[in-house]
């Protein structure tokens, strides 16, 4: 690495880290974003409900509430600038049975306190008109018109690509190991790929943000507890709903929702289970049962046999107290300049509404830097526009004809279920932040997410990756180190089996 001197190093390439990079790339700063995995967004950023919440749900006065509402407002323009899929769909929090109505009203009140615009209360008739499949015992709902649905992978990649376009550096497969501390100041970081120096280190390390900060003796009592949520995706041909549907929340959280997605799927989840292992993203039989039961409370006709995909994510639940006087809440975002050692900004405990708040978190971090005395000079040639790459599946016949003329590889369909073409795959492999694994291509193009779950495309994609990266097919992996698909060539002897 020739250049290891930066102004800002961001640890963590999830949606929040990428948004911070993007917002900071507006200024004359040398920015480095490091990500330990083989691709961006492989933590909670790719395992969530893909909803941009309106913001009625977080505790009033909390940082979560403030940044949720602000972040929501920024998404429309951002999606246009950065070219990712976003729809302001609105949502309904549905009360099932009269006993849920008081809690629903309380939620409405909280929304007012949080400054959430465009909220209304619907009666049973209105709910049923909008969502015919809703539980017949639904008595009404809270409608929030600013809720949106988004593709969180696209948002993460697009933000980071725009940062790169504007001069930032993104390093994948680069794992933070320790701080470089000199004269009681943080001067840089050590990674598995060498040392890097910077004035500011921004810790956006997700589920591991506590471990990172503790290496600088920052916030020794701050702790992240993983709370796992499981999700089930249903075949849109069999399960179609029109809306984003929430239950009335309980003490445990937002509850198990049923939502349409920006790609037309129907998704149910998440449940919430506190676990010990920060690597444990397993789905469970109990979790499935819980999610199905919760989903059927809203939409009784949901049948688990229509599942086409399942996944689980870990919420980085922190224990930071809310800084607003008089607000008794102990799981707020921790976003602050570390007071006891210079050079560190912690962005930790980012669980829901982290995705919704992400652009507002980035804004907030910019403000923190200004408050700390950084003169942030805007680049005269800052370009906020990152054009989306063509998506064959969304185009009409006529549009496809035009696209195919620019590159015939746009006509070679690789994923039959979702109509993803070879040209799209190749472009992601050679994108500013390259997709070098099967899952990276899947996240970015939507390949392999349909009914066949990669059964047909996996051998084809493996071959394309090998060809484009000029490596052997034996080296192609699902998600990076240790996850290769293939062990050896058929005719080689067993003694030549690779460590996969």
């Amino acid at each position, binding site marked *: 690495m020739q250049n290891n001197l930066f102004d800002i190093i961001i640890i963590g390439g999830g949606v929040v880290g990428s948004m911070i990079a993007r917002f900071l790339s507006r200024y004359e700063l040398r920015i480095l974003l490091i990500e330990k995995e083989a691709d961006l967004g492989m933590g909670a950023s790719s395992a969530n409900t893909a909803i941009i919440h309106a913001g009625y749900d977080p505790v009033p006065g909390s940082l979560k509430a403030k940044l949720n509402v602000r972040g929501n407002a920024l998404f429309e323009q951002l999606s246009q600038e950065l070219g990712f899929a976003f729809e302001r769909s609105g949502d309904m929090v549905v009360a099932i049975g009269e006993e849920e109505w008081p809690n629903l009203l309380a939620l409405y009140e909280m929304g007012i306190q949080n400054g959430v615009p465009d909220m209304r209360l619907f009666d049973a008739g209105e709910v049923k008109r909008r969502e015919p499949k809703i539980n017949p015992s639904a008595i009404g709902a809270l409608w929030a018109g600013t809720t949106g649905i988004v593709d969180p992978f696209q948002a993460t990649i697009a933000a980071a690509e725009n940062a790169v376009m504007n001069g930032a550096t993104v390093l994948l497969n680069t794992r933070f190991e320790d701080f470089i501390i000199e004269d009681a100041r943080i001067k840089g970081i050590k990674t598995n790929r060498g040392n890097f120096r910077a004035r500011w280190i921004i810790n956006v390390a997700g589920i591991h943000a506590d471990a990172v900060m503790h290496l600088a003796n920052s916030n020794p009592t701050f702790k992240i507890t993983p709370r796992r949520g499981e999700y089930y995706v249903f075949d849109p041909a069999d399960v179609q709903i029109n809306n984003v549907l929430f239950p009335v929340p309980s003490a445990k959280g937002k509850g198990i929702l049923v939502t349409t997605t920006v790609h037309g799927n129907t998704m149910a989840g998440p449940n919430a289970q506190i676990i010990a292992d920060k690597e444990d993203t397993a789905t469970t039989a109990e979790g499935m049962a819980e999610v199905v039961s919760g989903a059927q409370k809203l939409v009784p006709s949901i049948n688990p046999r229509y599942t086409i*995909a399942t*996944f689980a994510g870990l919420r980085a639940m922190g224990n930071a107290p809310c800084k607003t006087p008089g607000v008794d809440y102990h799981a707020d975002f921790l976003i602050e300049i570390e007071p006891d050692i210079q050079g560190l900004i912690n962005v930790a405990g980012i669980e829901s509404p982290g995705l919704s708040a992400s652009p507002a978190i980035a804004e907030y971090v910019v403000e923190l830097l200004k408050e700390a005395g950084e003169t942030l000079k805007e680049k005269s040639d800052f370009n906020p526009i990152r054009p989306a790459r063509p998506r064959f599946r969304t185009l009409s016949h006529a549009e496809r004809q035009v696209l195919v003329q620019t590159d015939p590889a746009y006509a070679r369909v690789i994923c039959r279920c979702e109509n993803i073409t070879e040209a799209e795959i190749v472009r992601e492999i050679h994108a500013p932040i390259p997709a070098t694994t099967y899952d990276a291509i899947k996240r970015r193009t939507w390949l392999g997410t349909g009914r066949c779950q990669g059964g047909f495309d996996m051998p084809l994609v493996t071959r394309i990756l090998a060809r484009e990266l000029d490596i052997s097919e034996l080296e192609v992996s699902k998600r990076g180190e240790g996850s*290769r*698909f293939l*062990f050896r060539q058929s005719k080689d002897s067993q003694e030549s089996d690779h460590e996969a």
Partner: protein
Amino acid sequence: MKHNYDVVVIGAGPAGLASAIEAKKSGADKVLVIERDREPGGILLQCIHNGFGLHTFKEDLPGPAYAQRFIDEAHALGIDFLLDTMVMEITPERQLWLSSARKGYFSLDAKAIVLAMGCRERTRPQIRIPGMRPAGVFTAGTAQRWVNVQGFMPGKRFVILGSGDIGMIMARRLTLEGAKVESVLEVQNYLSGLMRNYVQCLEDWDVPLRLRHTVKRVIGKNRVEAVEAVAVDEKWQFIPGTEQMIPCDTLLLSVGLIPENELSKKAGVSLSPVTGGPIVDQNFQTNLPGIFAAGNVVHVYDLVDYVSEAGNQAGHGAALFANGTLSKPQKSIKVNAGRNVRYVVPQFLDPRALKDEAVVLQCRVTQPIEEDVWFEVRSESQSIVRRSDRYARPGEMVSVKLTPSMFDDVLKAGELFLDIYAKSEA
């Protein structure tokens, strides 16, 4: 390549090839086969084992050889092929939209279409195996493609879930290529596939079969490290205390085939909820005039020879539709799945086509009956034909023939039922 054809066949697997050849022989002038792979042959290209052609050619051929015979004949007859081409859409008016790296994105029109897209495999999420999602969980067909065509081994130590034919065939194949197959797990208490494969794939190669077992969860973050096997009861519920870790690096799934009908559905073809394939009459014509279907896209066959027969039927029908001889039926005789029958194909009979040619009804029994059985076709009140066999198994398709002498009874009946039952329960 032209822009309108008499018959267009989607898929150059055994059903598609047979359809195209028969369509040509039945007088269709311009016949085109569209195939998404770079070469014709379909799934047969990766089925390198023997067992194909025992009925058709009276030979025991490997899959590629069976396909080659049809490919050679298709070329000799002057049938057009569009390879490396995906059909994006078909309309009820029989317009097709095609996407081809070599020929571009364009449409063409057909007087008749034969759907022969085959099927896809049931996936892990569809059977909801919990656990981590590492590399190393594949469907058997995907592994078969890697091993037999592209020349790679996707693992060293395998567990196979499902005793269907593909799973058993892969157990042998992987062992032949030097891998270790720890076990084949089957959730039912009977073999899913053919007995011959049990003998020649599992017994011959010392691969243990465990009936009434399944996978409880997958372990491993980046690559499969083990699966947790568990015994199940007759309701497929886990029996506590029977869990057992099986260290392995690959889990192969052979848990069912699903007819591939996205194109069909979008065009408005009526599908059977039981088979997942189009509802057809004895010409294999669907509810959309001029759109026919043959092979695994209609229902999953066990022997390719019967697929070729179906292809012949559909291709013949398509050619006759294209030249105006065959039209859409106005009144149909419904064929119902009766006692112990999961489904029957065809689901309807076109009365106007009940003339001089026999009609073959194909079905599958719901549960194994390991004693002498009757296969009976009847009306509400009257038995029309009955034949017997020594057993009935879900893994083996059953055929019952209606000969022209029975057609009067069939026409009078208006509706038919196909039953399978033990002789002892007659």
